[in-house]
């Protein structure tokens, strides 16, 4: 592990400001928030309170929607997704911790659409890095970093939240 730490607080502030602006720009009406298990859920919890959203926070576990199932098999203990609301026709803010290849977001979108057809989805991530493999971009980010092919960025939490870079 490289001795390197990024300020999660600053990134959360930037992501929050970006989402406030995006809610206005896209005219999101009473949006729902969904965090992607696990890191995205921690970030979403912080933002959900700050944005004062009415509906409870939803948690998405995309394990059953991963595109590498045939290579890695099924995870033994998958926490079920919990979306305590109907998504049909609603505006949704989808939150994840790190945007890397884009495959997690693709899986998350597929799963959300299995619950219903939302009106709009806005994607917010704490940090995006290089290495996209499919055309998925975030609407709001807290920060951006370029890493080497052997490096991985990981969020630990939930208390305290900290980002660290690991060499594989």
């Amino acid at each position, binding site marked *: 592990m490289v001795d390197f730490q990024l300020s999660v607080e600053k990134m959360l502030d930037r992501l929050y400001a970006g989402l406030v602006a995006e809610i206005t720009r896209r005219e999101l009406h009473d949006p729902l928030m969904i965090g992607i298990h696990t890191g995205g859920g921690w970030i979403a919890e912080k933002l959900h309170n700050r944005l004062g959203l009415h509906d409870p926070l939803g948690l998405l576990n995309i*394990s*059953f*929607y991963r595109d590498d*199932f*045939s290579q*890695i*098999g*099924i*995870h*033994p*203990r*998958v*926490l*079920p*997704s*919990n979306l305590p609301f109907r998504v*049909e026709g609603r505006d949704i803010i989808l939150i994840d911790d790190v945007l890397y290849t884009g495959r997690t977001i693709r899986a998350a979108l*597929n*799963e959300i*659409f*299995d*619950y*219903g057809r939302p009106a709009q989805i806005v994607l917010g991530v704490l940090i995006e890095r290089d290495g996209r493999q499919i055309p998925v971009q975030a609407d709001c980010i807290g920060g951006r970093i370029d890493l080497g092919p052997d490096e991985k960025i990981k969020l630990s939490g939930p208390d305290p939240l900290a980002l660290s870079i690991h060499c594989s």
Partner: protein
Amino acid sequence: MNKSIQFDAAGRLRHFLTIDGLNRGLLVRIMDVAESFSSVTEQQVKKVPLLRGKTIVNLFFENSTRTRNTFELAAKRLSADVLNVNIATSATSKGESLLDTIRNIEAMHVDMFVVRHEASGAAHFIARHVAPHISVVNAGDGSHSHPTQAMLDMFTIRQCKGDFSKLKVAIVGDILHSRVARSEILALNTLGTAEVRVVAPRTLLPADAAGLGVKVFHDLDQGLSGVDVIIMLRLQKERMSGAFLPSEHEYFTYFGLTGERLAKANPNAIVMHPGPINRGVEIDSRVADGPQSVILQQVGNGIAVRMAVMSMVLGGYGMANVGVAS
């Protein structure tokens, strides 16, 4: 029978044929994965794409309603394509051998056989002869094994009662002909159940019943005394070739579960039955439909457990060498 046939060279579950030879960790894992699938039924689209592009063949040589339907629904909820082979109208009924039937379906590039057969060992036989990329799940073979039924019953018990180490479980009825009872006894003992009882007339018990790791009772009132779980079994008349019972009426008199008899068990005891129920033969309707009955919960759980088994078998399950009993 060869137990290791259930695992590939890397120790991953490849076939699911019997509880025998599986360890506690794997049984718990099956229940955990089944639990994970619980949210799928809440979705508007009640399926996940795990087995998209896979083809699962239901090969039922014996009648079945619940098991075949729940296997089919489980496969469809995993987004697999399902082929139901109707044996009654297939070439098998025109004299084609079992292996020829298998070879022909294999040529259609399928990925899994779900097999029910009246002969004990049929699923093992097929597993030994299928192509390396094909998995076999046993949906009941003769009087031998019905591992997914056992697992859905374990899952239901865990949902209702939690820790197996504190439970007394009574399995009541036709133990001799019951593949469900054999698989359940294995699973309950593997999971560390405090006490497993079998309650049956002497004619409906295997000669080596005590050797199965159970307490044997021939009196229903005594057998039910203080138990937390009662599993009633159907009288398998289709497998009885001799005179095992004087009459169904007499069987009900001595071994039928009535409200009065249920009162011998713990007040919170649950009543289970793998179905189909013979009302008035092994169980009174008021008990089958009563507040302590979890029979319909078992049916619903059958889908989640079969989803778990099929996804673990076709996708490995990420960890090798944890499933074989040491």
